[in-house]
């Protein structure tokens, strides 16, 4: 019964969605409303106005920087939520299944980690710094940092990784992005513009562009650090086995 109902619901949804999709303007057509209305300004003046050659980064950080602030708040809130569900894990020593798995004693995994991690870190820092001029940016680079730390966690064991990046250090680093947005935004408001204005009217004209580049870099690094650290913290929280399970089968 439930199965049939679910199938019917899905079919109804599929019919509705396919119907509406068939009515959409053809994909990739230059005359679509999407290509005519707002976007031409981004593409034509983006480099000059927003200060980024990568227009996507310009939209993410400059035209729609407020969304990015919300996005970083979501990431922080998700981490806080995971702490709320699984406990904060302030204790120094934790337990994790990867410590018992024997992966970390393997020569291959350690060598691979030692060779890979510097490359991953280099790549991520490159992606962050050149995020405004080439594909990439704070989020991608930060996620790559997180991936690097994950590899080291697997290769060197959970406790080693956790002691290298202790709880309070992560706690401080996690707020970097929001703080950066708050401070950079306030700088805009104080300097005569609006919140998140980078071209401050009160500055001299010749240093405005430099200031904007500096602010964009601060934001990129803030986002990168936050994303990397939060991914690590989430992984640690998911791995840590602190409580003894009292498994009761309720069913």
């Amino acid at each position, binding site marked *: 019964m439930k199965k049939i109902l679910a199938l019917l619901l899905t079919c109804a949804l599929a019919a509705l969605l396919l119907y509406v999709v068939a009515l959409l303007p053809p994909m990739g057509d230059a005359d679509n409303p999407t290509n005519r209305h707002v976007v031409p300004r981004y593409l034509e003046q983006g480099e000059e106005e927003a200060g980024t050659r990568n227009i996507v980064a310009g939209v993410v950080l400059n035209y729609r920087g*407020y969304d990015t602030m919300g996005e970083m708040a979501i990431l922080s*809130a998700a981490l806080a939520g995971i702490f709320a569900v699984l406990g904060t894990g302030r204790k120094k020593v934790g337990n994790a299944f990867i410590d018992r798995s024997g992966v970390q004693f393997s020569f291959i995994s350690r060598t691979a980690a030692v060779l890979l991690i510097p490359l991953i870190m280099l790549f991520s820092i490159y992606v962050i710094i050149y995020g405004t001029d080439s594909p990439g940016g704070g989020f991608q680079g930060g996620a790559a940092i997180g991936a690097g730390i994950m590899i080291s966690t697997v290769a060197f064991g959970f406790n080693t990784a956790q002691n290298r990046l202790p709880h309070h250090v992560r706690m401080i680093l996690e707020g970097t992005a929001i703080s950066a947005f708050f401070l950079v935004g306030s700088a805009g408001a104080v300097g005569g513009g609006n919140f998140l204005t980078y071209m401050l009217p009160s500055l001299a004209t010749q240093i405005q562009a430099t200031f904007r580049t500096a602010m964009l870099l601060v934001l990129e690094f803030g986002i990168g650090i936050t994303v990397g650290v939060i991914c690590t913290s989430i992984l640690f929280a998911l791995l840590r086995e602190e409580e003894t399970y009292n498994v009761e089968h309720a069913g």
Partner: protein
Amino acid sequence: MESAQHFAIYAIVTPLFAAVLVPVITLWKKNWAMPLTGLALTISLILSALLVSPVRASGYLSYHLGSWDPPFGIEIRIDFLGVFMMVLISAVSLIVAIYSRRYIAPDPSREERTFFFFGEEMEEGKRPVYYSLFLVLSAAMLGFVATGDIFNMFVFFELMAICSYALVAIPGTRLPIRAAIKYMLMAVPAAMLALLAIGLLYSVTGTLNMADLAETIASSDYTQVITVSYVILVIGFAVKAAIFPLHVWLPDAHSKAPSSISALLSALIVKMGIFGIIRVTFSVYGAYFPSGLSWVTGVLMWAAAGAIIYGGIMAIRQKDFKLMIAYSTVMNIGYIVLGFGLADVTALVGGTYHIMAHAAAKACLFLCAGSIISRSGYQTIEHLRGASRKMPLTCAAFALASLSIVGIPPTAGFVSKWYLVSGSLNTGNALLGVVVLAGSVMAAVYCFRVVYYMFFLPPLNGAWQERTREAPISMVGPAWVLAAASLALGIFSSWILPPLREAIESLLLGI
């Protein structure tokens, strides 16, 4: 008024920044979490309150983030309805934050009994997390009502959603976890539907700014796509708003969460879904509104009537105290949606006023329930007999707020129901007016039963003997403030109703 333009954005980002500071500061100063939360929310409240007069003077307030002109950057656009919601959100959040102080951290020196979260206390490490999430939640709601950009609205919607899932699950025991999972299983797909709708809308208009969208939609050829996107968007918000057939997650989530969070969920978060529907209907799809989408409002109207009847019946049948209040929320959501579904100025004024009336009264009921449950450990209505002998102040606040839920004349609930009934008579739906009145009767049954038990019956055998003490002042005080507010909002309703009516009229006409 040069600096006044920044008030709106700082009302939003101050709690967000404080949310980052709270866990860091509590690494060194354990007791600073609550004062910092209170400070940030007070700043938000003051800034939102200062926005009222400029918004009233100019109709709406527009703030361009990053100094980009609206269709290109994100715009904050606050009309009177928005500033009304901002003041409501920051005030209720502040009151609940003050209540939370002793609710989540009982004072051991006074030998307070702790029956938090159904018998288990919150571990100390989670307290800064609680305040942090609380602040982000307030900031997200403020951002949600203030924004004038539809994708930004989605971002804040998700931010709010993530905080509320986490806060429902914060006790970490069985039932809250299950309630949170049930909540997420419905709300996350709904949010994805909303994103899909925004995508559809974007693909035929090419803009994300609401005012610009309204103009583009009015002249667009893609009528069916726009209608379908409206339906999907409304479904997405309706799950969050727990409108009748989609309310399944609500009773569990609201009754199993910590009581302070239940108060916030019932008073504000479900209202955000309704606010979202109102906002997109009038500010985005305004060109289609009265004629092209009348069947959607018709469906919503009958769903609302269903919610009133179903919520009332289920609330009467409940034995669990908080579950009863949660079903009462299902019913009151029905009233607010009814005001929207009737698509009439009077009814809509009643509906929006009911947002505020219900926020004050329901938050008070949940706070009182939290005080009683945390001090006594009793959760069923049966055990409430004779509660007033030990906790007179809490029970009196509960009784006062019940009056507003039922809609007895001097309270705020009466005003909004009066408008709803006259609105339904205006539009020739006498049956719906009868439903509203029947809802009041059912509310009287379930509320006054509890009040009767509290005040006029002797305690059950052995109950309420040693587990006794009136809740501390920081828990009784907030409940009384809310109870008094629900009375004052009824008495002084003539101060708020005229500007609200103007705002609704300008919404209906299209700004």
